[in-house]
């Protein structure tokens, strides 16, 4: 039994949530329906039984009682009065006729009532099948016998009444009274019988009521039980669901946290990598311009070096020819010293440029640009590029000299490359215009190298973007320049293509780089 119950519980437990709720709904609605039907039945049964008890039984009893009363009071009293000659025969006859009429009427209606004994279907059904109707009080034969006796007595009394005449004797009166008394007795027994029937009926009703109540209670109990069980199942289900969800959420949260942590690590790593990359990029740019500068130094050194070599050798040849005179030596030594001094100055220039001098200093923008032009002079000369510097308003700025110089070198190198590849030797011009606009220093670098192609224009400041042949550029120069101007000097750098009368009123396609630097940060 317990196993089965457990199995059932397990079965219910295993049911899906959907079926559990269906079950709950089904049981609650079924139980409710049961309860409603049963309560309806009990109400109707009780009502019908009341009807029977109070309407039929009571009425029939009243009718019988009436008949009895009429016999005892009207007929007997009238006969007694008639016997004592207090009323005449005519009056007696009238009263007796009236009494007889009443009796007949009541009797007929009583008889009709007992015949019309139909019951409500449902209670009949219940009484028939569910309870065993206790009919031991009911005895149709006895009742019929009593009724027949009453009918016979009635007829006898009627005959007697008809026979009532002036010549009535004592015996007939006593006989008559006896008959009336006997009929009263019969009537009383019939009443008793009917009463017992009513009591029986009442018992049955009680029984039906009890059964209905029991059924109701059982059904209520079942509904209650099932509701509770199913509710508990559903609650369990919810709990499980809740638990599993909670666990899931915990898992997910943990996962998220882990992800978050790893992301944080990743981000910090990426950030540091980015920083490293930036540093490397700066270094690369430095190296790139170092290379360019080295090229410059090499060029600027080659010539004096060649001359000095020649001077040294000239001593030897003059010596071997015996033509080495003091004047010659003096002259040559002077020349050599001059050349060596020149070389030393060149080195100094570049050394200054590359010194990691990160200190802000006060310097003239004009000097800075002139110096930058000087540093790239050799290449510019070689490519026959004319640099025009127009300083409309020179001013002292407080900034990073070397970095700014670096930017100008980059721009000049860029212009140089454009000019070399696009313009013939006689028209290569770079124009640098310095001006002051409100609180900004504005430097325009213009070259007539034909401008920058539209598809390249948005990308010129991107790192590693280069249009030049691999060996010519690293693609870092302009990116570096932008970084220096924007990050270190809080300025702006932009470029566009313009048409400009750069020389002799002749219009050229030019590219224009504009640098804006705030004059004072304070």
């Amino acid at each position, binding site marked *: 039994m317990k196993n089965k119950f457990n199995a059932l519980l397990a079965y219910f437990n295993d049911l899906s949530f959907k079926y559990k709720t269906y079950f709950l709904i089904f049981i609650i609605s079924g139980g409710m329906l049961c309860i409603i039907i049963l309560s309806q039945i009990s109400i109707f049964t009780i009502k019908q039984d009341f009807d029977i008890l109070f309407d039929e039984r009571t009425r029939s009893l009243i009718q019988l009682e009436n008949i009895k009363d009429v016999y005892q009071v009207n007929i007997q009293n009238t006969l007694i009065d008639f016997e004592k000659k207090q009323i005449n025969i005519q009056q007696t006859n009238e009263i007796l006729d009236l009494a007889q009429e009443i009796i007949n009427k009541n009797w007929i209606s009583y008889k009709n009532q007992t015949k019309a004994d139909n019951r409500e279907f449902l209670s009949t059904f219940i009484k028939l099948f569910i309870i065993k109707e206790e009919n031991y009080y009911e005895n149709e034969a006895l009742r019929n016998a009593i009724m027949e006796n009453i009918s016979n007595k009635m007829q006898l009394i009627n005959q007697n009444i008809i026979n009532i005449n002036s010549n009535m004797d004592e015996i007939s009166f006593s006989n008559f009274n006896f008959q009336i008394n006997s009929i009263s007795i019969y009537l009383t027994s019939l009443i008793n019988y009917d009463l017992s029937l009513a009591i029986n009926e009442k018992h049955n009703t009680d029984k039906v009521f009890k059964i209905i109540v029991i059924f109701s209670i059982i059904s209520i109990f079942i509904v209650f039980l099932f509701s509770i069980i199913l509710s508990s199942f559903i609650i369990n289900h919810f709990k499980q669901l809740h638990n599993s969800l909670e666990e899931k959420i915990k898992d997910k949260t943990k996962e998220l946290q882990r992800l978050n942590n790893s992301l944080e690590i990743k981000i910090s790593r990426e950030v540091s990598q980015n920083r490293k990359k930036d540093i490397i990029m700066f270094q690369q740019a430095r190296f790139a311009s170092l290379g360019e500068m080295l090229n410059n130094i090499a060029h600027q050194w080659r010539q004096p070096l*060649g001359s000095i*070599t*020649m001077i040294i050798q000239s001593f030897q040849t003059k010596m071997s020819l015996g033509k080495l005179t003091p004047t010659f030596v003096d002259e040559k030594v002077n*020349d050599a010293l001059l050349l060596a001094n020149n070389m030393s100055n060149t080195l100094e220039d570049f050394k200054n440029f590359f010194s990691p001098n990160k200190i802000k200093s006060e310097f003239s923008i004009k000097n800075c640009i002139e110096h930058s032009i000087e540093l790239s002079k050799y290449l510019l000369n070689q490519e026959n590029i004319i640099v025009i510097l127009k300083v409309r308003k020179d001013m002292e700025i407080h900034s990073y000299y070397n970095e700014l110089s670096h930017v100008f070198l980059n721009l000049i190198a860029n212009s140089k490359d454009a000019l070399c590849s696009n313009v013939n030797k006689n028209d290569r011009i770079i124009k640098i215009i310095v001006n002051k606009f409100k609180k900004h220093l504005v430097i325009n670098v213009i070259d007539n190298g034909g401008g920058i192609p539209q598809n390249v224009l948005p990308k010129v400041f991107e790192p590693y973007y280069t249009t030049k042949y691999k060996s010519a550029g690293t693609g870092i120069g302009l990116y570096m320049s932008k970084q220096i101007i924007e990050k270190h000097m809080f300025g702006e750098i932009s470029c566009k293509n313009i048409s400009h009368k750069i020389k002799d009123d002749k219009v050229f396609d030019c590219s224009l780089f504009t640098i804006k630097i705030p004059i004072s940060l304070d």
Partner: protein
Amino acid sequence: MINKDLNILRNFNVLYLEDDENLLKHTSDVLEDFVNNIFAVKTSKEALDVLLNKKVDVIISDILLKDENGIDFLKHIQSKNIHIPAILTTAHTDTNYLLDAIKLKVDNYIVKPINIKELLDSLHDVLLPLVQEKEIRKNKNVIKTISAITDSKQVEIVKYIINSLDKENLFIASYTDIMENFSISKPTLIKLFKDLAEKNILIKVQHKTYRFNENALENI
């Protein structure tokens, strides 16, 4: 220091094209001791001027000149049918220039800084054929002059003997062979051979075979 006979340079004029003033001056100072005349110029225009007006035997040119190119200059003068040996100097070891130089049949290519010995050597190398050519022409003239004033038949036979020498300086022939080629009397021929034998120039090794002794010529 100087192995080659640089004295041969003394008779030649050099055009030196170099845009670096210092180098031009110092190199010229050195070179002027070795050559007849040095025309030191800074531009191709000046160089062309010199070429048209002066006798130039060799050109020394830098490749990278201000606004121009030594190779272009050489091309230009070659296109004008002026063929003068040239030496290029350059700081560039660029193969592009080298290829151009080879195409132009430049005589030498000197990388800066200039080693004066190397420059003089290559000048010598360039100019030597000119000197030799001169020398040969001179000798020819001498021989021709001598043959004009002496017996021309004997000179012709000497020529024939020298031309017929084999690898070991041996001359193989009989008098009859020679007499068949030249209309010369036998006594004259015998006298000639005898003279040569006396002076140790042509020594009889065996029958019909003579050795030509070059060293004997030095002692005459």
